[in-house]
């Protein structure tokens, strides 16, 4: 798990002592950069593979489709490689990579006349057929306003261990609005911490938490009907 980074503001470190370039980077990052600069294909592919899904998801917040997002990711890699020689290591490698990616995504999104501020990208959910399995009592209930009317049915533990659970989670994440999909992918799948996500996507902690919560709530709900079924 990547080390936690202090919240608020950029990752840039103040001017360090002249220990040489890349001295501020973690040992892992420094090794990655050195291998890349020396043209090591294996390092490059490994980095690509580890970050591919996260990069596509991050790009999808700004462009119209996954296909375009894939193109943006490839463009970003070109930019990353070209910028490698000048990379000073004042911030972690991944943060720098994602900044380049987001810039590409924004420019690409802009070119397609889709320059919408991030917070306004909350698209309408295309649901309605999925009915909630649980419900709350109304605010004017005489005894228990806001309490469970029909509470969540207990999940069988083995359900979540099933491969089918992952299929359903993945499907529900695909259905999320792009900004919720970005955040839940980076936080819950890729295991980034919240400061890294805020930095990469340029959003506040509060905003990030709201998006994450909505996304998680929907995914849980999508699992609820299936996970509660008792196999005979």
């Amino acid at each position: 798990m990547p080390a936690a980074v202090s919240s608020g503001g950029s990752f840039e470190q103040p001017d360090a002592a002249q220990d040489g370039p890349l001295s501020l980077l973690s040992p892992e990052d420094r090794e990655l950069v050195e291998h890349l600069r020396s043209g090591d294909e294996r390092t490059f592919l490994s980095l690509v593979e580890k970050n591919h899904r996260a990069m596509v998801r991050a790009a999808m917040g700004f462009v119209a489709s996954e296909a375009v997002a894939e193109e943006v990711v490839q463009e970003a890699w070109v930019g990353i490689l070209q910028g490698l020689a000048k990379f000073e290591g004042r911030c972690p490698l991944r943060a720098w990579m994602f900044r380049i990616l987001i810039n590409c995504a924004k420019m690409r999104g802009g070119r397609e006349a889709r320059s919408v501020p991030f917070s306004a990208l909350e698209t309408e959910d295309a649901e309605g057929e999925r009915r909630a399995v649980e419900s709350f009592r109304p605010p004017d209930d005489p005894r228990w306003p806001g309490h469970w009317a029909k509470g969540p049915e207990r999940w069988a533990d083995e359900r979540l261990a099933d491969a089918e659970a992952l299929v359903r989670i993945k499907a529900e994440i695909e259905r999320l609005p792009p900004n919720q999909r970005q955040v839940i992918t980076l936080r819950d799948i890729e295991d980034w911490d919240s400061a890294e996500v805020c930095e990469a996507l340029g959003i506040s902690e509060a905003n990030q938490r709201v998006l994450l919560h909505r996304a998680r709530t929907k995914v849980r709900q999508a699992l609820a009907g299936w996970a509660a079924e008792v196999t005979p």
Partner: protein
Amino acid sequence: MSVARPEEIACRQLVELLTEFLEGALDEPTRTRVEQHLVWCPGCTEYLRQFRATIGASRRLAEDDLPDRVKENLLDAFRHWRHGS
């Protein structure tokens, strides 16, 4: 006429606070209210269990699914860059 006490929280409010709760982002009074509610409420206890289980399961989706076509394109770009610089 309900006995709703201001220092208590209803289930509907609690489920909205769970992400903040799990991150330790709630102030102490609110967190205490959430915890006290979880002591007695079977519905919210189960909901939190499910919420956590969902997060845990999502983590298992982290596998490298790089399409071959993309891999080829990027390798090309890499070799191109390597020979150019």
